[in-house]
């Protein structure tokens, strides 16, 4: 059984039990053990990087140290965490001087970054430790007839030099994982464009403009739902629909599900166990179509 230190981050435990439940239950069913380590903190994502990059590297490295001490690789559910932790892990492994500088900071907290561990997005874990073949065999309730708009968001793919998840301009990983569940992955315009999530709170107008475009394009393509990989994208597109409606008088009623939620449903996990009521846009349309 493969074991990973789960890096849960902030937004998921604060607001998205639907994400955490679906990920924990699906991964357990697929034989991936998630270990919850004590004393983790914020990953130091773009908002913290914007304040001070050196601090963000040190904070991310501190969290990696905890996984190093437990002799485990890290698994992330949030793309923001994936990007921040990978940035520190890859950068510090490659730059001895910077590593020494960050380690001087970490010594204040009694830690030393060694660079002995990997940071993985859960999609990478699905590919590396389960594989499409076994995943397909594990599907007990295929999502037949469901048209899914794959949405990678930004920080699962870019900067690709650090993340190495897939081709940043022509990815296929998420589409393959969607089709393995029996669903159809639908193409839509500007699929790789940002959801605007990180502009929320600073410029809601611009953020909603970007979310609106995503909703319009996926609707036009005939998608039954959008599949996301990141809690920020989920907020931008799910709660975002209510704000888009208020601002532009446009109703999309487009369910937004994390890929892990689609995975859990396909693995036969009872929808009642998945806290689907967390969604602002009801998921009934999706459940009806696959039942």
């Amino acid at each position: 059984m493969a074991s990973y230190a789960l890096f849960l981050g902030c937004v998921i435990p604060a607001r998205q039990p639907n994400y955490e439940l679906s990920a924990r239950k699906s991964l357990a069913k697929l034989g991936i053990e998630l270990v919850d380590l004590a004393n983790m903190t914020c990953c130091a994502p773009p908002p913290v990087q914007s304040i001070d990059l050196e601090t963000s590297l040190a904070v991310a490295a501190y969290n990696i140290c905890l996984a190093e001490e437990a002799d485990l690789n890290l698994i992330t559910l949030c793309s923001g965490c994936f990007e921040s932790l990978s940035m520190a892990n890859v950068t510090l492994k490659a730059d001895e001087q910077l590593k020494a500088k960050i380690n001087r900071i970490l010594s204040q907290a009694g830690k030393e970054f060694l660079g002995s561990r990997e940071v993985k997005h859960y999609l990478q874990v699905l590919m590396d430790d389960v594989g499409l073949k076994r995943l397909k065999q594990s599907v007990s309730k295929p999502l037949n007839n469901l048209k899914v708009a794959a949405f990678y968001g930004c920080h699962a793919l870019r900067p690709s030099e650090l993340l190495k998840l897939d081709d940043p301009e022509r990815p296929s990983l998420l589409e393959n994982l969607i089709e393995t569940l029996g669903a159809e992955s639908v193409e839509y315009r500007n699929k790789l464009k940002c959801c605007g999530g990180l502009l929320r709170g600073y410029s809601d107008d611009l953020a909603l403009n970007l979310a609106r475009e995503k909703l319009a394009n996926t609707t036009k393509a005939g998608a039954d739902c959008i599949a996301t990989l990141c809690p920020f994208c989920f907020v931008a597109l799910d709660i975002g629909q209510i704000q888009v409606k208020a601002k532009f008088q446009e109703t999309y009623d487009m369910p937004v599900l994390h890929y892990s939620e689609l995975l859990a449903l396909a693995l036969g996990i009872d929808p009642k166990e998945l806290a689907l009521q967390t969604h602002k846009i009801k998921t009934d349309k999706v459940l009806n179509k696959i039942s």
Partner: protein
Amino acid sequence: MEHEREEKTISLAFSDVVKSRLGGETITLCYQCGTCASSCPVAKITPRFNPREIIKLSLLGEKDEVISGDAIWLCCSCFNCQERCPQKVEIADVIYALRNIALKEGFIPNIYSEFASTLLNDGRIAKVSRFVENKRPALGLPPLQPTGVDALRKILSATGFDKLQQKKEGV
């Protein structure tokens, strides 16, 4: 005469300041081709943001305009530009470096102040309320492990982040 006057007010050292900071190292590689601007989802919907323009102004030494303006805060950190830059300018990282400089000089949007306070107080940038935490068992979630707030505060103190926060609160 106009030309002379301009030379005196321009501080070319600003590009060196940016270049010497974490994230800013690649700024001087820019040859202003505009691939960044044409790849930018924000530049497509507003004239308020153009990554090529931000780099140009920084290279020309227009420090005040760059760090006091709102443009640097409108980058959505999507990394499209950085991915495509033919000169390998790490544009999104350069913008982080510019934001870091802006903040040190007291220019900080409220939302970032809030992020910093929450981080210092709770060890997370989104607080997990007691109400949400108490609901976990009923939902079938394991208890949350304690957050490493003490260790985090030591790190934030070692980098001076906690003092940046005090400075902001004084603004």
